[in-house]
């Protein structure tokens, strides 16, 4: 009787340890943290149709002035305002809400190969941004772990980019935070965004974007090259 009780308790204990070790979960891990590696599709709050809610955007006078200019340019398809129209990358954060991504996680950084009109993105696990770095379309991203949450901090984003496809501008003060968590089944990344830009917006704003895991064994799901080619410059095909 006592032996049987020990057996039952032992089995329960083993099951608990197995569960804590992640063996009962499909969530992939690397060095004690979730492993986000894999092929992903932007799934929630994705694409050009998703814009910031105008009524909720509390802008500074400078923000309102710039927004009027940018929105008018977007509405008339002006490539000097909506520079994606002349094949410039849409930049961050817009490129974090488009299409397919191949995420490669390593010990010291994460690399993201996006499909959509943009350069790759690298996020090093470090505490400081690059010193005296240039403004770039994808900005300068660093990452840190808060438990199982990956916090990605991006600044230094090229000012010509827009925050969304309706024309919201940003300044050199745009600060973009993504908090990534991986679902227990390993199939979904939830990315909680916080954006601040004191020159343009009076308050921070938030958005949640999700990514779904794609089947990388399916050739059609993989990255398809997207080099911007057939664009008109000065009335002629480039």
């Amino acid at each position: 009787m006592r032996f049987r009780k020990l057996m039952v308790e032992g089995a329960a204990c083993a099951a608990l340890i197995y569960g804590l070790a992640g063996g009962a979960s499909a969530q992939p891990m690397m060095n004690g943290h979730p492993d986000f590696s894999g092929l992903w599709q932007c799934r929630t709050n994705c694409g050009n149709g998703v814009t910031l809610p105008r009524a909720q955007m509390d802008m500074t006078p400078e923000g309102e002035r710039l927004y009027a200019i940018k929105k008018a340019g977007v509405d008339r398809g002006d490539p000097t305002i909506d520079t994606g129209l002349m094949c410039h990358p849409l930049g961050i954060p817009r490129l974090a809400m488009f299409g397919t991504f191949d995420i490669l996680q390593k010990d010291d950084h994460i690399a993201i190969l996006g499909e959509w009109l943009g350069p790759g993105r690298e996020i090093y696990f470090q505490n400081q941004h690059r010193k005296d770095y240039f403004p770039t379309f994808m900005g300068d991203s660093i990452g840190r772990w808060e438990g199982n949450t990956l916090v990605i901090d991006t600044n230094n984003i090229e000012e010509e980019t827009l925050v969304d496809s309706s024309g919201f501008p940003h300044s050199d003060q745009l600060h973009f935070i993504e908090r990534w968590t991986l679902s227990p089944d390993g199939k979904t990344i939830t990315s909680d965004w916080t954006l601040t830009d004191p020159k343009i917006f009076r308050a921070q704003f938030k958005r949640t974007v999700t990514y779904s895991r794609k089947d990388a064994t399916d050739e059609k799901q993989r990255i398809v090259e997207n080099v911007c080619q057939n664009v008109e410059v000065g009335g002629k095909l480039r």
Partner: protein
Amino acid sequence: MVVRHITGPLLLSGLLVSSTAALAHHSFAMFDQTKSVTVEGIVKSVDYANPHVWVDMTVMNAQNQPVTWSFEGGNLGGLYRMGWTKDTVKAGDKVKMEAHPIKDGTPGGQIMRVTLADGRVLGRGPGAAQ
């Protein structure tokens, strides 16, 4: 090979234009998303390129004159995943094209769907409006 159905003011202005070069700009602002046009014709050329595919078609107008219509679709990745391949639509094919017309009446539009000669119907794939 005739214009089958056009809504809105495109009817006259579109048919009066005899030809046009392929439109290259890929802003979707130039298309009227509230209207649709359907034409049948012969594919003149296909530019399988990013950011968006362009399909030029020869469509006969009411005077039985050939008119080149230019249609913009989505990006290659989106098309590929929707079933398009490099041979899905090619020069010489007879197709039916349904599209959002160009606002200024230039013959062409943003692809909504393409019906191939074998009856297959394909969407435009995602693009700027993804």
